């Protein structure tokens, strides 16, 4: 059996994950509370997964993402999704230049390291789907040419709950491309008091740029080295499978509530996110706690509910709780 020196692995992780504290510190300068949100942003950053933030307006979703972009010295673009937005407004288009008498490519805002797709569900599906290729393949096709996107490339989208007026639900294919869906909740009383004080101050705090894209790329390679045992892989597969065939796990009552279970992308994302979480916790290996810590964010937007579930006010979170409570921990 190949032996892993825990001390050595942990030392390496300690060294490489030093920037986690820096990011947290800088984020805390601007964002009050929302520790869970900051942690999830870092998981997405380290696991190379796109993020979807959902919450009521005014919960610092956009501020959190723009602050993260400020901390890292990388190209940051923001697209405000509106009902009249067109796909070309995102990916770019061919423009005829009278000077050169040729068509020239005008790259869209998608060509950036960090892309903030603000209120993504305010645009119809055809505009949202313009991001599909960019998110999955990390490239964009304009006319005859395909252009690589810069590395790192991270889409951080915000959306208001779909019950709100004037919103379009994201297509399942696009939802699946987001590694994490983070639900942003209201701040606590003390936190809200702090927010008021910060806004009443002469100058609103600003995060410093302390990291380079290369730091993120290096950290990502370390995250990939985090050891994941076969037992953890089995645990992840069991959790994902339990959303597809709940009756095999003694969850027959969920069968009529789930329209479709989590996709294989969920298994991949769960493994990646668990590794990133272990990295943040300064561990060189994944334990079941890591999987459980990220499974809600990874799976909540990948489980389709039936009308029956909606009628009974069953949420994907309820389904995940039931699944996690039933699947045996290794």
């Amino acid at each position: 059996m190949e032996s892993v020196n825990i001390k050595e692995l942990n030392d390496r992780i300690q060294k490489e994950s030093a920037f986690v504290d820096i990011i947290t510190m800088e984020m805390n300068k601007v964002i009050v509370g929302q520790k869970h949100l900051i942690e999830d942003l870092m998981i997405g950053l380290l696991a190379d997964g796109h993020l979807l933030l959902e919450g009521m307006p005014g919960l610092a979703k956009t501020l959190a993402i723009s602050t993260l972009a400020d901390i890292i010295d990388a190209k940051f673009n923001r697209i405000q999704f509106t009902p009249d937005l067109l796909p070309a407004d995102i990916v770019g288009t061919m423009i005829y230049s009278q000077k050169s008498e040729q068509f020239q490519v005008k790259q869209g805002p998608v060509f950036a390291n960090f892309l903030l797709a603000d209120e993504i569900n305010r645009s119809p599906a055809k505009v949202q789907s313009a991001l599909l290729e960019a998110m999955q393949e990390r490239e964009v096709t304009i006319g005859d040419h395909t252009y690589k996107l810069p590395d790192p490339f991270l889409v951080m989208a915000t959306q208001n709950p779909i019950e709100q007026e004037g919103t379009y639900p994201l297509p399942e294919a696009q939802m699946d491309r987001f590694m994490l869906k983070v639900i942003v909740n209201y701040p606590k009383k003390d936190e809200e008091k702090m927010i008021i004080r910060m806004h009443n101050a002469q100058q609103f705090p600003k995060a410093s740029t302390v990291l380079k894209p290369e730091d993120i790329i290096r950290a990502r390679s370390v995250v990939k080295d985090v050891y994941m045992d076969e037992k953890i892989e089995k645990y992840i597969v069991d959790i994902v499978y339990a959303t597809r065939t709940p009756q095999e796990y003694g969850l027959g009552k969920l069968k009529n509530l789930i329209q479709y279970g989590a996709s294989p992308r969920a298994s991949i994302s769960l493994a990646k996110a668990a590794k990133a979480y272990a990295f943040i916790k300064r561990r060189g290996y994944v334990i079941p706690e890591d999987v459980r810590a990220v499974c809600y964010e990874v799976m909540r937007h990948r489980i389709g509910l039936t009308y029956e579930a909606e009628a009974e006010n069953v949420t994907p979170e309820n389904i995940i709780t039931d699944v996690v409570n039933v699947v045996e921990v290794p």
Partner: protein
Amino acid sequence: MIRFKNIFLITGCVVALAACGRANKSEKKEMKNPTLSRDSILVGDQVVMSANFSVPDNIPIQVIPYAQILASKSAGAQGEEEMSQDSASGMQKANLQQVAGSVQPVQTPQSTGLPDSTSAAMVAMPGPSQVVQPAQAGTVEVVHDFVVDTLSFKDGVRKLRAKAIITSFDSGYYKLPAPVILIANKRGGADTIKFEDRFLTVNAMQVDTSSFKPYQLGVKDSQMKYPISFSDFIPWILLLLLLGAIAYCITRYFKLKAQNKDFFGRSKIKVPDHVVALKKLEKLRDEKLWQSGKEKQYFTGITDTLREYIQKRYKFGAMEKTSSEIMESLKDKQIEEKTYANLEDMFKVADFVKFAKYSPLPDENENAIPAAVNFVNFAYMQELKEQEERAAAAAKKQADKTAKTAAGQAAQNADNKKNTQKTEETVGNKKEEEK
């Protein structure tokens, strides 16, 4: 020698013939015509036709089905006489010959004294106004064809009775053809026992128009009620019995389950949880897994055993919890500090081994089982203590209740005594006043 043999045979035959003769003589007296249970019936009623006859033992007989006799009548090819000795079909005779074999000694009807058509007693004849109709298939129907019963067996002669049930749905006066019974004879053929024909009057249902009341809708008890027979109740009785059996099985199951017995009343032997856990841990130690480099298997076995035990002992889903969640859940279980710390360390090392390819030190391997055993022992002792405390609390509660009842009773007695004294005093005062 040969002469002796012949004499013996002849004597035997004479004795046998004499016996048959006696039997036939007696039969001649007892022989009856076919009888009908009723000569006159209503349409659809059933009548039993029976025919008594005697045959020597070991002589095969064949009763011609009555339905066949009626069918032959309806074919019209032959009359009543057709089913006589001469007209009995060759096929029937051949069948009988097969049955009889070649060695059976048989007697003719004449020799046995069985009745023929001429010697049969006279039967009821139709009145002058009645038109006799030949009974045929369709007019007279066989409900149950002839079945032969043995009435007695005496002196080598069987007394038999053939019974059939017939009915008719057409009113009229019918001449019923006689039953036909074939017996094997010694020539290899068959003789017929012949009976007299009988007459049956079938009356139509008499409609009593004088007392007829039309059915009145909405008037209670005006509808005709059919008589209730026992067969109507059979399905309900069966259903009741079935429900009773199910109820009994369910009651028995739960009653015996409460007594920790199986359905058949056998006691279930349940090994205590801590014994199961300790045995598994002992087995893991004996397998010497970590000594052979199987640390992962070793620690997985220990943690699985402990999680199973914790789940049963503390009644929470330890199998679905992570190590830290288990330790968190055990925090409020009043576990001794040292035992808790050892258990936590053991779980941490186990997690390292299971999920981080960690090779534990020999000390860590050796200490894992003792830490687990200590925890199981502690948890068991704690369980015993809890049981004792519960029993003591229950006993105290019971004692308090008893004392309270006794005190109440004493107070009641005292009150009664006081009241009696008061009454006596009042009576005494009254008496004194009267004096």
